[in-house]
């Protein structure tokens, strides 16, 4: 395989869970890739499937009630087709994951050092003593002060920020090629969040690993990610480089997210434009475009036609799944940027059906 091949390539991944209430279509045919040393940000609300997609990469959603199809190619090897044993050799070794809540991800009855030694020795045939030295070195790498003194502390003796650092140390134990970070800073205060994001950026530079960062916070992906995928109801609805996505977003859901959060740079009295309604059930999904019940620009036929994720006319790297014509979308976004409300923007941009 050539160096230009992506480190991770997910092709038409579907994950469904059979429940008493019906089949939950958690991930519904998503395709994306992550290049070596780059950062992909996956943005979405709770229930958008972003966490399930990433946990499936590590085989963590396997079970009798789950049905998984599609391919997850990691350096050319298909993780979906692998046996549990083969996957175990990769998990925590070549691909590592950190979770939102470091307190529940660490075992409360074992010292932090013990758990790190375990992570090292799970994949390396080294003595306990060598593993302990490596553990101290890892704790130092992630910026725990006095690592020799703290290595035998228990998780409750660490602060929230230090626990997340310990989780990162554990993830780095075997120098993974890919780090999956699921809401790594959501449970943390902003100043600690800044420390952890700085740390992840520094470690990525030093170790050259690729990162998939999953979050609902557009600010975090704007700071961290090279490329961004926006998920809604189990699908990717828009994907582009970070610069392109924030400068010229194409999907009405992305516009909704951008316009509904207050920022430190917008005028203080700017009106927030909420997205109406609530995220849909993944059991009874809306027909056609899944976003149409909440989309202010939806046309009658959008409840019948299911849009595919396709390149935007003049930007081959920018993909969007939207039934509106590109010129209409561009006019709508320009109107929204000028401070108009969605219905005013729609009136000003003309009826979408008449554009072509």
């Amino acid at each position, binding site marked *: 395989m050539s160096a230009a091949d992506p480190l991770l390539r997910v092709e038409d991944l579907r994950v469904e869970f059979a429940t008493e209430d019906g089949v939950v279509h958690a991930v519904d045919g998503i395709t994306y890739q992550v290049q070596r040393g780059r950062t992909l940000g996956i943005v979405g609300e*709770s229930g958008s499937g972003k966490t399930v997609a990433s946990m499936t990469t590590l085989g963590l959603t396997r079970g009798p009630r789950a049905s998984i199809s599609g391919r997850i190619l990691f350096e050319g090897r298909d993780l979906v087709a692998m046996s549990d044993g083969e996957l175990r050799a990769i998990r925590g070794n070549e691909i590592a994951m950190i979770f939102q809540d470091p307190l529940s991800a660490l075992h409360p009855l074992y010292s932090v050092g013990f758990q790190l030694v375990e992570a090292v020795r799970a994949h390396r045939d080294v003595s306990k003593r060598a593993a302990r030295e490596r553990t101290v070195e890892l704790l130092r790498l992630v910026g725990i002060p006095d690592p020799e003194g703290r290595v035998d502390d228990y998780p409750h003796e660490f602060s929230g920020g230090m626990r997340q650092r310990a989780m990162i140390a554990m993830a780095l134990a075997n120098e993974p090629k890919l780090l999956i970070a699921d809401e790594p800073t959501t449970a943390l205060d902003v*100043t600690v969040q*800044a420390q952890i994001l700085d740390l992840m950026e520094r470690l990525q530079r030093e170790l050259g690993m690729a990162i998939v960062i999953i979050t609902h916070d557009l600010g975090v992906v704007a700071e961290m990610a090279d490329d961004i995928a926006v998920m809604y109801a189990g699908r990717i609805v828009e994907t582009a480089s*970070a*610069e392109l996505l*924030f400068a010229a977003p194409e999907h009405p859901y992305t516009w909704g*997210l951008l316009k509904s*959060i207050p920022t430190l*740079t917008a005028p203080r009295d700017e009106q927030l434009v909420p997205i109406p309604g609530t995220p849909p059930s993944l059991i009874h999904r809306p027909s056609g475009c899944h976003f149409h019940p909440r989309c202010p620009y939806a046309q009658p036929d959008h409840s019948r036609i299911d849009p595919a994720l396709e390149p935007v006319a003049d930007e081959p790297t920018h993909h969007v799944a939207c039934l509106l014509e590109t010129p209409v979308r561009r006019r709508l976004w320009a109107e929204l940027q000028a401070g108009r409300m969605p219905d005013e923007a729609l009136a000003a941009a003309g009826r979408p059906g008449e554009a072509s």
Partner: protein
Amino acid sequence: MSSRAGDRASVAGGPQSASAVALPDSPQGSTEPLVQVRDLVKHFPITHGIVVQRKVGAVKAVDGVSFEVRRGETLGLVGETGCGKSTTARLVMRLLDATSGEVRFDGQDITRIGGSRLKAVRREMQMIFQDPYSSLNPRKTIGSIIGEPFAIHGLERDRGARKRAVQELMEMVGLNPEHYNRYPHEFSGGQRQRIGIARAVALKPKLLIADEPVSALDVSIQAQVLNLLRDMQRELGLTLIFIAHDLSVVRHMCDRVAVMYLGKIVEIGPADPLYAAPRHPYTGALLSAVPVVDASAARGQRMTLGGDVPSPADPPTACRFHTRCPKAQELCSVEEPLLQDKGTGTEAACHFPLTPEEIAEIGVRSRR
């Protein structure tokens, strides 16, 4: 009242007294602030022993806080976990008893009243909580949840009238009045927060305290609830204390903002100057830490604080921020700085406040 306020300002010698400045004297009672907090302290004792409990220390959750909330305005309380912002709110509501200091609500000291007088005051102040799942009783219909304040205060005794009042409230907060007999689990997080708001405004209170009202909600839902709060405030003339850790949300919602660190207010002032030109290094660090939603503007220089917030059981001497402050000098560990306005419109408790050059340098990335 005017002379008393004047006395207080001159007599109060506490560390935070600079913020307890007397308002411009006014003959009318109604221009007096709705809430006046003076040198408020709450220490939670740390005890050892089971039978004979010895007090071995205290968590100084709130340690000398003074501020006031003017009628109709929104005051934001921001700070990190453990800075005392929620404790302050609970003290103002009398959900906790203060160790010392006083809270005046509508001119009346409510820190030591009880019984029917307290109940009467409580009618005037209501609270919205962070978690819309645990703050609604799962065994009650939302009709009875929203109607509960009427029951407690013996209002709208007639069943039909109470139902009508509740349904009006439901309509006002954007809920379908036909869902009167449904249970909380049948509603989404955003709708539950609307139920909480309907319950809070049922008695048309003067003061509403919102403690992290949107932090448990999905991004697309937050704006719905924030807009609703603003509409309610405008319609009912509410005074709002808005507590949040998200600085962008606070900036959007609040007229004035108080920044807390380890039980003290380190900076307080109108939102515009506070966000555009923070004086206290801690405010600067907080603002600098907020990720910016703009890929081109981001990746500027971030002012990252080292270490963690010290324990409130054993806070640093003098200026509590000196152990993490990039500008700290010897004086900071010896003499506690007072809140004062150095002509920028905000009051900061700092010996060496940020200079305009530093504000530009640390990349507090705000246009105004």
